[in-house]
């Protein structure tokens, strides 16, 4: 609930800036000259040996040097990350990038530019709607520009691309399982774990893997999500050694909920039903503000892999 309140604060605070940005109409044109897309989560990238020229899609502050990238900026401590790099004598650079900001992303990172905390050259900035935030606060939304939430940064980028009609162009995903945190636990077992970090150890026949619970959840989500959409990009993770069911068991979770088809490919407006101030459980598509057709339950798309 705290996250919804923070999202509302950012959304209201940044209305002036948001009103200056357009919604993206055709991001597909960015693919001209590329044979597909590589979604790059945080951390070292996997070399899949793909020879084609791929458009890199990233989150705002996941990589230091960003040239010719499509960037999706959503919730995250972006300005703090920019400042941390400056202290190390490094600087975030964005050149010839298309940056799409989610309306609930704190835009105070834009104040970092005149202070020299990052370089922004020849970039286009667009905005998109935050699906779950609007649903929670019962704010009307346009499905064409509304991105549903997902678990983990990598899967959020995939969700964004699917919503923008670019899902079928994804050729490779190098996502959060390679990020610095899981690397840190793999390499430095002696490190003290902070009380708020939920690090789990999973046993398997050749040993054990330590990772954050949210990365496990991210892996489960991404695998189920890709399967549900029938997408087969290059995507490898040490967590792929385990079945979705095994991971869910370690996480003490019964099931995960994927976005329904309407959230991913529908057009037009949506009206939410359910209790005000709670995450949406039902919605209906509207035409000129009038609800049409049947009530759609979000829980219709629960995925649970059985043994």
């Amino acid at each position: 609930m705290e996250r919804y309140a923070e999202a509302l604060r950012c959304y209201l605070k940044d209305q002036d800036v948001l009103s200056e940005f357009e919604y993206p109409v055709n991001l597909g044109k960015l693919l001209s000259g590329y044979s597909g897309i590589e979604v790059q989560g945080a951390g070292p990238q996997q070399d899949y040996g793909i020879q084609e020229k791929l458009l890199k899609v990233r989150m705002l502050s996941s990589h230091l040097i960003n040239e010719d990238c499509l960037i999706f900026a959503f919730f995250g401590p972006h300005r703090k990350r920019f400042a941390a790099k400056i202290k190390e004598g490094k600087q975030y650079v964005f050149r010839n990038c298309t940056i799409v900001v989610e309306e609930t992303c704190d835009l105070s990172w834009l104040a970092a530019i005149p202070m020299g905390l990052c370089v922004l050259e020849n970039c286009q900035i667009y905005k998109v709607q935050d699906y779950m935030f609007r649903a929670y606060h019962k704010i009307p939304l346009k499905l064409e520009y509304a991105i549903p939430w997902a678990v983990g940064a990598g899967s959020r980028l995939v969700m964004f691309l699917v919503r923008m009609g670019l899902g079928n162009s994804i050729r490779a995903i190098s996502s959060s399982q390679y990020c610095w945190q899981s690397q840190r636990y793999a390499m430095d077992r002696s490190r003290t774990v902070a009380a708020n970090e939920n690090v789990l150890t999973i046993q398997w026949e050749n040993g054990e893997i330590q990772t954050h619970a949210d990365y496990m959840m991210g892996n489960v989500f991404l695998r189920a999500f890709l399967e549900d959409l029938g997408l087969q990009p290059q995507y490898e993770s040490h967590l792929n050694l385990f079945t979705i069911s095994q991971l869910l068991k370690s996480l003490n979770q019964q099931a995960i909920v994927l976005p329904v088809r309407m959230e991913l490919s529908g057009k037009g407006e949506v009206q939410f039903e359910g209790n005000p101030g709670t995450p949406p459980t039902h919605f209906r598509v509207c035409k000129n503000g009038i609800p049409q057709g049947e009530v759609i339950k979000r829980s219709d798309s629960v995925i649970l892999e059985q043994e």
Partner: protein
Amino acid sequence: MTPLEAKRNFEHDQELLELLPYPGELTQSVEGYEEIVIEGPGASSGKETSKLLKCRKFGSHLNNDDCLLFAFSDFSRKLLYEQFKKKNPYIFRNCVLLLEETSDLDWLVAVTMGWIQLEDCQIYKVQDFDFRSRSDLPVQENFAIPGAVPEVSRLFVLLLRMGLLNRLTEVNQMPDSTKLEIDDPENVSLSSDAGFSEVFKRSDLTDYLILQELKKEYASTVSLNSSLEKFSNSDCLKGLGISQVELPAKL
């Protein structure tokens, strides 16, 4: 600004504040200026020479050339955006900006967005004396500006703190009383023995009285120009319903 907002701004903007220097010897930054005038909102000294430094509150005037600007408390980037939308953007040229650590630095977004012109300006930070005292944070007196009641007297205190009071020749306070409504509790109707009657903001009256006290306390020869001059101090005190104003402890 509430103490909570001050705390939020201070914590939120730490990474930006860390990059800004304290003004140090501010006298060096304003070396070429022989004279300083304070211009409150809507006020102008009418003088224009290259040797004159205008001391203003950030956001109180649209065109700012050769100014010493103090950004504190209630400034919002919304003002910058509104003016940009009216195709009449704020301009800051050859200015020295002093940002109080508890002011909201989100206005810097306006620079990135192209809503304002910021040319050849030096930016420094200063400490918020009252906030630091309240929060038990260490204070460096050279850079800590005590809270004075609003606007113009705050600028006087800033110059005093920065060691520039000896160059101050004029203080101009011209509160706009034209659109004020008497039934607003923030406003006061003032009547003089000479038969004048006007509505003013309470805060402007307090500001005026404090300026006079400051002038007296620091034996300043500054010329104090105010649209409140036609009222006596006792008219103002009566309007506010108080018997006297008190200055903060030794500034």
